[in-house]
């Protein structure tokens, strides 16, 4: 088989220069027309294995690049063996692939790392709509003799429902993450949840009706699901977006798996369920990191501003200001510094100057580490990518569970642009909106330095007693400017 595959590959390259019929002939010569279907199935199996090995490579930064390449090879193989089968005519396929590749390449090259959440939301949307279109084309064709019509109809309905919800929901999420003015404020109305429930029930009814294979239900089903996706995502606030895009990531995989059931194709089912599982795991990790249930994130109304002690009460007379020069002296002769970055750091584009600060400290023999809260960025793992972009080595990026027990051996913790994720109220006040949320225990460090514009609250809207703690010093100002001043103060000192 290996020789055959190689021969087919060579033939494919030949074909790229020649034309359609030549490939058809060549492929038939190599494997015979009946063998092509079998060759395709074996190709799909190899592709599925490569996808699994590819994801397995993602378990360590050292092997991740190779893992991603394995996945890409698997995809190339799957597409190649598919081209040998009948379907959309080859010129149409190739022009579609060229258009899609060009768009994908441009975006992948141009996107800034701060914009990754929007890009992933857009990818989720495209995955969803692709499944809707594939299922739609199959509904149009009617069931083929060798497939079970009832299964195909039902699966097409599911693919349409999930795919369309994923598409419109992800487009709204992308708009929110891009901070388009239209999506600035979470939008809701009384009875929204009842409306959604009714839409979902009607949608499921249409899915069940699809088993008769008359096909007319598909179009209204997709329209309804598009509306449902918008209504489900609009009320969700910016801080909850990491959960939403992880969930929509999972949906886009499940829609692909459903499309696999429609055309009885193994590789679609396997790849789709891998992505579905991945999205679900990330969703649950994000929910745990905020100590909220998924239904709370998705359906809870935005409550009125939290009650509890007023900011003045917490901060009055207890805030100690500091200056870059004072900090430079403080950092002289310390042994271990932990930097706690929040999204404010990325917004200020201060990752690189943080790296400069770390370099200076390391040159003095100081151990520098970064404590990364799971929701520090706008999507799972976002902050790690932003720091990696600034050439921070990955061994220094520590996750919460690993670094929390070590804060007591830390001389200075520097909190930059983070607020709620270091608020001790989460552990002490069961009535607070962030009660039970796992936090980074920075107050255990000998000295805590908080670099922040003002005492304004974070997303949770509550004051942070950490700022008033005895061992906490506040350096007010823009993150980037403050750090630049600190770096030059250390250089001078």
């Amino acid at each position: 088989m290996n020789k055959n595959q190689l021969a087919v590959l060579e033939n494919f390259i030949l074909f790229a220069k020649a034309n359609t019929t030549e490939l058809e002939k060549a492929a038939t010569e190599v494997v015979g027309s009946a063998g092509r279907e079998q060759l395709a199935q074996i190709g799909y199996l190899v592709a599925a294995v490569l996808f699994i090995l590819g994801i397995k490579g993602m378990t360590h930064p050292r092997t991740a690049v190779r893992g991603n390449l394995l996945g890409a090879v698997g995809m190339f193989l799957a597409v190649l063996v598919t081209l040998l089968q009948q379907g959309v005519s080859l010129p149409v396929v190739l022009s579609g692939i060229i258009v899609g590749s060009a768009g994908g390449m441009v975006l992948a090259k141009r996107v800034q790392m701060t914009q990754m959440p929007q890009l992933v939301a857009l990818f989720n949307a495209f995955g969803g709509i692709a499944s809707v279109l594939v299922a739609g084309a199959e509904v149009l064709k009617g069931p083929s003799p060798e497939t079970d019509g009832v299964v195909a109809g039902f699966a097409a309905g599911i693919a349409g429902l999930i795919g369309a919800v994923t598409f419109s929901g992800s487009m709204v999420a992308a708009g929110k993450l891009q901070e388009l003015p239209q999506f600035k404020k979470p939008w809701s109305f009384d009875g929204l949840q009842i409306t959604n429930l009714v839409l979902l029930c009607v949608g499921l009814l249409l899915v069940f009706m699809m088993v008769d294979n008359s096909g007319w239900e598909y179009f209204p089903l997709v329209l309804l699901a598009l509306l449902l996706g918008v209504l489900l995502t609009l009320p969700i606030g910016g801080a909850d977006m990491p959960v939403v895009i992880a969930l929509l990531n999972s949906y886009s995989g499940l829609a692909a798996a459903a499309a696999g059931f429609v055309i009885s194709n193994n590789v679609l089912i396997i790849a789709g369920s891998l992505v579905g599982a991945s999205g679900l795991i990330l969703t649950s990790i994000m929910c745990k990191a905020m100590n909220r249930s998924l239904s709370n994130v998705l359906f809870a109304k935005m409550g009125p501003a939290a009650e509890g002690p007023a900011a003045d009460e917490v901060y009055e007379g207890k805030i100690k200001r500091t200056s870059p020069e004072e900090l430079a002296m403080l950092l002289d002769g310390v042994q271990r510094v932990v930097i706690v970055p929040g999204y404010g750091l990325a917004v200020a584009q201060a990752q690189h100057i943080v790296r400069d600060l770390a370099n200076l400290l390391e040159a003095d023999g100081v151990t520098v580490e970064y404590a990364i809260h799971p929701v520090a960025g706008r999507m799972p793992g976002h902050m790690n990518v932003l720091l990696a972009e600034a050439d921070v080595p990955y061994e220094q990026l520590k996750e919460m569970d690993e670094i929390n027990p070590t804060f007591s051996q830390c001389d200075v913790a520097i909190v930059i642009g983070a607020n709620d994720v270091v608020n001790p109220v989460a552990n002490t006040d069961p009535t607070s909106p962030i009660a039970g949320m796992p936090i980074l225990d920075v107050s255990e460090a000998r000295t805590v330095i908080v670099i922040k514009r003002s005492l304004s609250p974070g997303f949770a809207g509550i004051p942070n007693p950490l700022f008033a703690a005895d061992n906490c010093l506040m350096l007010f100002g823009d993150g980037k400017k403050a750090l630049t001043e600190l770096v030059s103060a250390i250089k001078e000192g």
Partner: protein
Amino acid sequence: MTLITALTIFVLAIFIGFEVITKVPPTLHTPLMSGSNAISGITLVGAILAGGSTFGSILGFLAIVFATFNVVGGFLVTHRMLAMFKKK
């Protein structure tokens, strides 16, 4: 392929997914997401097999464009990100 075969593959693949993906460290969660976006572009295979009528081919063409966008964009941006993760 019977429904039972398809369901078996589906369920087993989900289990494999859970086993493998729970071992991915938080550091790599963003590349994991963009990489899995690329893998869910596998609908490209379904899109190529679509067709039949003219309208079916139009739907197929659009699906090919969207799915390829995911495949190419997803793998490239993941590669770009992973290349940034360096040892000391």
